[in-house]
């Protein structure tokens, strides 16, 4: 198929009502300068120019509140968690469990026990593929089917391939249309009585498409399958409410929501987690250990073997607090404005093609400059102090569908400005000059 192209500027990420008020806004509803001052890293120069950080979809920068939370844990109350009777162990355990509660509230889960701390989205999905996908009561059998979409990141594809290969199950792929939206008619056709697991990105990391998770969940559940949602690119930009989405599992990473790397969370519906076996053995995940056999702790501890990333969980909670204090709706409205402005500015440059034109999009813009390889675009932009991503974005199958080897991707965060978008557009024009 040919590349999806943009004909109209995308709508903002958040609820439709917020979009109209954002149109044309020159500033977010929060104090952008003060917010930028919260992120110490942003105040630096790259190759003698002010840093313009537009690689937030790969990883976002961290506010001082997160740095302080991590330092505070190590400085004031660090000890191992869940297994000590002494004062520091209690403090650290309490702080980590409070962080779990913060994550619960952030994703709208019913109970903190439905939140498993993991290293990130990749580990979360692997956990589901291993434990649910291979469990005695829940696992796949030969002939079963797993459904993924053409826009999945490798981390929401390869674990399912491994599972299918091992179990003799088959992997089906839902195609996308030329806008870069899921082909829901094909999705309905591909859902079958053999479908056991459906794995979908909430937001595409290449196209920015927001997938209709609630609608998908409904279809999936009518077939008796479970829905696993990769929320890595959604959690920084959208209000996530697993109850409203109706998904069975939801995974996201801390480092993309202004928190530390090496921490993330998996939401799993309580009855599913309860039916799932451990996937890693070790300390902290047991009930009673005997040489003849071991019984396991209830979720979420059952899935958290070994000493966890304690300061990571605490840092993640600080990041989520920061985000919710600003207000996810305000952030979404502002990022929608940045995205719309970027699409308008870049789309007006001759020889620049925007990749993806889904009607609902969030956070990022992939583009191609005619005759210039994305890596060269990325290097020239870097020379001008602008950080973007160039490559296949861990979505090689999608690149094949789009018939491009790679794209350049600008991705926005709550601290980006319209001036930065203007600088991006000017830099892309410069790219055209250099390679003319």
């Amino acid at each position, binding site marked *: 198929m040919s590349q999806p192209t943009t004909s109209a500027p995308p709508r903002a990420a958040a609820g439709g009502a917020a979009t109209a008020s954002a149109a044309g806004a020159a500033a977010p509803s929060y104090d952008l300068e003060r917010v930028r001052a919260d992120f110490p890293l942003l105040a630096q120069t790259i*190759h*003698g*120019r002010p840093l313009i950080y537009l690689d937030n*979809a*790969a*990883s976002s920068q961290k506010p001082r509140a997160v740095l302080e939370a991590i330092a505070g844990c190590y400085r004031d109350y660090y000890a191992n968690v869940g297994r000590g009777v002494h004062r520091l162990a209690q403090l650290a355990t309490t702080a980590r469990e409070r962080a779990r509660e913060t994550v619960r509230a952030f994703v709208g889960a019913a109970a903190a026990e439905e939140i498993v701390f993991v290293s990130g989205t990749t580990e979360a999905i692997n956990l589901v593929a291993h434990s649910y996908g291979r469990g005695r009561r829940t696992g796949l059998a030969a002939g079963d089917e797993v459904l993924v979409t053409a826009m999945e*990141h490798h*981390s929401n594809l390869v674990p399912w391939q491994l599972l299918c290969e091992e179990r003799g199950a088959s992997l089906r792929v839902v195609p996308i249309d030329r806008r870069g939206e899921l082909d829901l008619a094909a999705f309905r056709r591909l859902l079958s009585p053999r479908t056991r697991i459906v794995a979908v990105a909430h937001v595409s*990391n290449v196209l920015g498409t927001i997938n209709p998770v609630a609608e998908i969940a409904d279809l999936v559940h009518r077939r008796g399958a479970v829905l696993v949602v990769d929320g*890595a*690119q959604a959690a920084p930009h959208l209000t996530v409410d697993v109850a409203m989405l109706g998904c069975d599992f939801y995974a996201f990473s801390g480092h993309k929501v202004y928190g530390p790397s090496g921490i993330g969370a998996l939401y799993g519906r309580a009855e599913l987690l309860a039916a799932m076996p451990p996937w890693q053995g070790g300390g902290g995940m047991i009930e009673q250990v005997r040489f003849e056999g071991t019984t396991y702790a209830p979720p979420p501890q059952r899935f958290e073997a070994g000493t966890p990333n304690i300061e990571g969980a605490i840092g993640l909670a600080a990041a989520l607090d920061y985000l919710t204090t600003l207000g996810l709706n305000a952030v979404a409205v502002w990022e929608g404005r940045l995205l719309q402005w970027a699409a308008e500015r870049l789309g007006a440059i001759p020889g620049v093609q925007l990749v993806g034109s889904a009607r609902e999009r969030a956070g990022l813009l992939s583009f191609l400059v005619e005759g*210039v*390889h*994305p*890596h*060269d675009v990325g*290097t*020239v932009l870097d*020379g*001008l*102090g602008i950080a973007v991503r*160039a*490559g*296949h*974005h*861990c*979505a*090689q199958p999608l*690149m094949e569908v789009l018939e491009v*080897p*790679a794209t350049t991707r600008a991705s926005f965060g709550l601290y980006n400005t319209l001036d930065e978008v203007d600088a991006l557009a000017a830099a892309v024009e410069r790219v055209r*000059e*250099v*390679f003319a």
Partner: protein
Amino acid sequence: MSGGFGELQDLYGEVILDHNRRPRNFGRLPGASHSAVGYNPLCGDRVEVYLRVEQGRIEEIAFEGVGCAISTASASMMTEALRGKSLEETRRLFASFHALVTGAPAGGGSTRAGFGGEARAEAAGSSAAGGALELGKLAAFAGVGEYPMRVKCATLAWHALQSALQSGAAAAQLEPEPPPGSKETS
């Protein structure tokens, strides 16, 4: 190019931009005696190198593929530099080129040119004896040394060449160790 663009000019010099715009010896080579594909899984770049080798000498050489300006220009200039060269000269040139783009000291033992220890030792000797001089136009790639992420772009065609000479068909190996942080994330 001006204002804050000086470093980039070192990378994207006129010669490189010219070879990117108008790659030389681009296309399949009918009657090739050797060929191989070089593939960079990190960025999806792909280059296929074709050779006609007679009596230990490269009589004809061509390439085709999709890549960035650095990998395209490198492949193009490699084909120009190697036509008529003996395999031994080819080995020495790759060693010198490799040392250039990795920023390795001339004559240092740290090249990963990969033609085997013997070739490395010879390359080191030739560098010490002024091997860098043989680089000629290829010296335009000196700027790559400042961009560790782009070294594999500059060497992709050379690795394909090496692979073609060794096996005649197999896919080329990449740089043995990618630079720190080169792993693709989302």
